[in-house]
């Protein structure tokens, strides 16, 4: 079976700056893959290319056996790519439930159905109690959860999570990890960016490390953290010892 | 008892000054009617309207802001709420269209005191009356004047038209275009400009390039001021200017640029010179000036007469019934001597137009207007070219 997502030799340039250079990665169905790497390595940029915010300067993106490089973002969402934004983008003048309904409307135009789905997703994401609150009143960590809920409501095959578990206490992070696992268990493939090793290590099946826009290494998390290149570029000494 | 007459003008917005001046003019007319004066004007001698037992005329003013819809609503309010028995207005021709329509619907006579668009009286309205001239008559007077000058050997061959893109400007431009063609004058520039433009330099330049024998502007005060200033700035000194009134009869224009307008000729319905032949004109002008600080001009004199004509008809109708007043208006035959205008008389044709409202041409000389045409009203020869 082919991979669910594949990037083939993808480049992204921003007037002089190369944010992604020749990135070829693949994500198999049902995997949880971690995308890690230093600040500014190009992780969010790669997410943007996969989700269709920008067309890559060069290279192609394949999803579910199909070349989606030229498809606009909305169309990719319909195909099954759901994403969150690192800098959260909630619909501030709408309630939490309405935010999620927007997502659910990709799959149905029956409002009753969309509303039901939205409730279900909020329940799943642990935001049910805040359903009727304006999105602008959420605290940052709740807003990130709303991002996830919204993306889940689109019933994605692939979910791109950009630092949604930051700013949580270790205990809360634990619940977050559980949430991601449950998402995967519903058959969704997950590609996630996270800087907190305590979350990445136990959660991901495989990790891809980007540095300076290139793939540095990829492999099992336990192996990655021992990699000297990763330690010097990303983890720093303390984690090297710790791991 | 009183007779209530509705008067609607722009009392706010860019033409508010017109409305304010009109209030004084109508006020003066109402005063002449309601108090006892020894003038040879209809209704001046007694108090109020004798036909209605000395009832006094009361005016109700309404602001239409130059908006046809508002004019319509105000006319309706005047008729239904203020119970006016007649309406007078409106300055802007577009507003006159809707106001006259409403009056027609309610069978209330309407006097179009100072609207000069020729299309207004041609709509087959029964309750529409215009004692004064319209633009075709005015323009015809100008061309009569040119013809007369030509006979005396003055060279007038080419004309430049300069008119704004409103009803007034368009109608005036069309009338002049038509007359020029009929009488064999060549139009070398026909410039339609946007009213209240921030700049007229491009327009003036084209006028300058055309350099016609006569420049014929149809502009309101604001554009008039800007036009004259811009002409001076761009070194354009036309041989003669014959203006379609409006801004060119406004004091503000001459206050601003009078020195550059020595010798300008404007058509008009009114001339203070008439005071020499008919002293009452001077007396009434003094009355008006006491209130407004200004001399009667082309607009305010027509407004004054509008109310006199209307009151006269109501008086003769002996009733405030619309249909009766209409009949009385239709039967009006007021000799020119009983007006403050150089008119032959006031007598309406079946479309409600007074065709005997002879226009005059006035020339601005030494800070004053002097009547130069037609011959029977003229007190001086026209200075041609204009200095």
């Amino acid at each position, binding site marked *: 079976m082919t991979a669910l997502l594949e990037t083939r030799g993808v480049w992204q340039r921003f007037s002089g700056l190369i944010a992604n250079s020749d990135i070829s990665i693949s994500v198999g169905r049902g995997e949880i893959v971690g995308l890690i790497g230093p600040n500014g390595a190009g992780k969010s940029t790669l997410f943007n290319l996969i989700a269709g915010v920008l067309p890559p300067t060069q290279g192609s993106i394949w999803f579910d056996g199909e070349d989606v490089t030229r498809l606009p973002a909305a169309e990719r969402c319909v195909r099954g790519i759901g994403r969150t934004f690192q800098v959260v983008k909630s619909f501030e003048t709408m309630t939490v439930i309405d935010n999620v309904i927007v997502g659910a409307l990709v799959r149905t135009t029956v409002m009753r159905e969309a509303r039901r789905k939205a409730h279900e997703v909020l329940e799943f994401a642990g935001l049910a109690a805040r359903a009727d609150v304006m999105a602008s009143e959420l605290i940052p960590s709740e807003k990130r959860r709303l991002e996830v809920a919204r993306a889940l409501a689109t019933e994605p095959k692939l979910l791109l999570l950009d630092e949604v578990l930051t700013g949580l206490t270790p205990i809360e992070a634990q619940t977050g990890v559980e949430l991601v696992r449950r998402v995967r268990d519903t058959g969704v493939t997950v590609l996630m960016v996270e800087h907190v090793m305590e979350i990445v290590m136990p959660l991901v099946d495989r990790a891809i490390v980007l540095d300076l826009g290139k793939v540095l290494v990829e492999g099992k998390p336990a192996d990655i953290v021992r990699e000297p290149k990763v330690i010097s570029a990303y983890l720093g000494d303390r984690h090297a010892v710790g791991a | 008892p009183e007779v209530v007459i509705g008067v609607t003008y722009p009392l706010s917005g860019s033409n508010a000054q017109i409305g304010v001046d009109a209030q004084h003019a109508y006020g003066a007319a109402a005063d002449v009617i309601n108090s006892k004066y020894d003038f040879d004007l209809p209704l001046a001698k007694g108090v109020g309207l004798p036909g209605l037992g000395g009832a006094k005329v009361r005016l109700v003013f309404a602001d239409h802001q130059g908006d046809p819809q508002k004019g319509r609503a105000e006319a309706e309010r005047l008729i239904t709420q203020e119970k006016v028995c007649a309406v007078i207005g409106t300055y802007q021709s577009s507003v006159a269209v809707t106001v006259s329509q409403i009056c027609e619907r309610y069978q209330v006579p309407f006097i179009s005191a100072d609207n000069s668009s020729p299309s207004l009286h041609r709509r087959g309205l029964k309750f529409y009356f215009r004692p004064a001239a319209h633009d075709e008559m005015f323009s015809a007077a100008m061309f009569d004047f040119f013809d007369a000058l030509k006979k005396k050997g003055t060279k007038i061959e080419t004309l430049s038209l300069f008119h704004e893109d409103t009803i007034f400007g368009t109608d005036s431009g069309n009338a002049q275009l038509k007359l020029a063609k009929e009488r064999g004058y060549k139009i070398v520039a026909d*410039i*339609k*400009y946007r009213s209240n*433009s*921030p700049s007229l330099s*491009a327009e003036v330049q084209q006028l300058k390039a055309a350099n016609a024998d006569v420049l014929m502007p149809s502009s309101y005060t*604001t554009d008039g001021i800007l036009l004259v200033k811009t002409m*001076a*700035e761009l070194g354009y000194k036309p041989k003669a200017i014959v203006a379609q009134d409006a801004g060119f009869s406004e004091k*503000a224009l001459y206050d601003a640029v009078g020195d550059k307008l020595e010798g300008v000729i404007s058509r008009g319905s009114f001339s203070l010179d008439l005071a020499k032949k008919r002293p009452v004109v001077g007396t009434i002008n003094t009355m008006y000036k006491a209130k407004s600080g200004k001399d009667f001009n082309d607009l305010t004199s027509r407004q004054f007469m509008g109310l006199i004509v209307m009151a006269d008809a109501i008086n003769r109708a002996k009733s405030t019934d619309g249909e009766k007043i209409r009949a009385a208006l239709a039967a009006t035959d007021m000799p020119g001597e009983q007006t403050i205008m150089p008119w032959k008389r006031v007598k309406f044709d079946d479309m409600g137009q007074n065709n005997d409202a002879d226009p005059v041409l006035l020339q601005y000389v030494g800070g004053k207007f002097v009547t130069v045409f037609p011959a029977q009203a003229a007190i001086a020869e026209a200075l041609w070219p204009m200095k």
Partner: protein
Amino acid sequence: MTAETIIQSLASGLLMGLLYGLIAVGLALIFGLMDVVNFAHGEFLMIAMYATFFLFAFFAIDPLLSAPLVAAALFVFGAVVYLVIVRFAVRAKANAGMVQIFSTFGLAIVMRGLAQFFFTPDYRSVTHSWFGGKTISVGGIFLPQPQLIGALVAIAAFVALYFFINRTDFGRALEATREDAGAVALVGIDKNRVFALGWGLGAALVGLAGAIMAMFFYIYPDVGASFALIAYVTVALGGFGSVFGAFAGGIIVGLVEATTALIMPPSLKSVGIYAVYLLVVFVRPRGLFGSM
């Protein structure tokens, strides 16, 4: 159409363009740099013209001399308008843009009403100023002196504003306040002070424009309306956030207006300006030099 006509047109267009620039420079600060809508810009111009007129009529101060006085008066006025009205409009959480538009639109109506109330709707003109009505002729091309002075003042105003914005702490604070009005308090900046000063300054520039305009334009309560839309288009054409853009925008507007009048009926000359604006933003959605 002779060469002279064309040159004269372009020369007049250029002068007019600089004048539009002068009228727009205050707006370039308030609307362009501070990103606050001021629908009463034309009315600011109107009161500046009245102020000039009255200084001339009662104290016989020539507009050129009264320009600094008018600018100072307008500075106070602008700051007060910010503190009394606009401060609350920018604070609105929902629909801040519309609240700004309509609160300043309301202000514009009030100002017109007040002008009518106190000054009457009469048309006024400054009749005998030093330069009013004078004109220079260079090889058959006429350049009116008031507009020439306006052009010089415009250039000076733009240069001054440019340096003020780019070279001073206040300029930086202004930009920062626009970027994130809530965050400037983190570095100890009082956003109301900065914006009040910005409004004062913007209004002062309008004051200069009004004093120059009064030399050759008529004055009445609605006079601002003739210039307001052109000023907005000028700022947007040049691009929000760029002082130079507004300057270039003014010149382009003036030249386009003059050329349109050469090839189309003059009553359509603003169509040329508007069409150029649309063309520019369709190709460059941030105007010619805009950063926002």
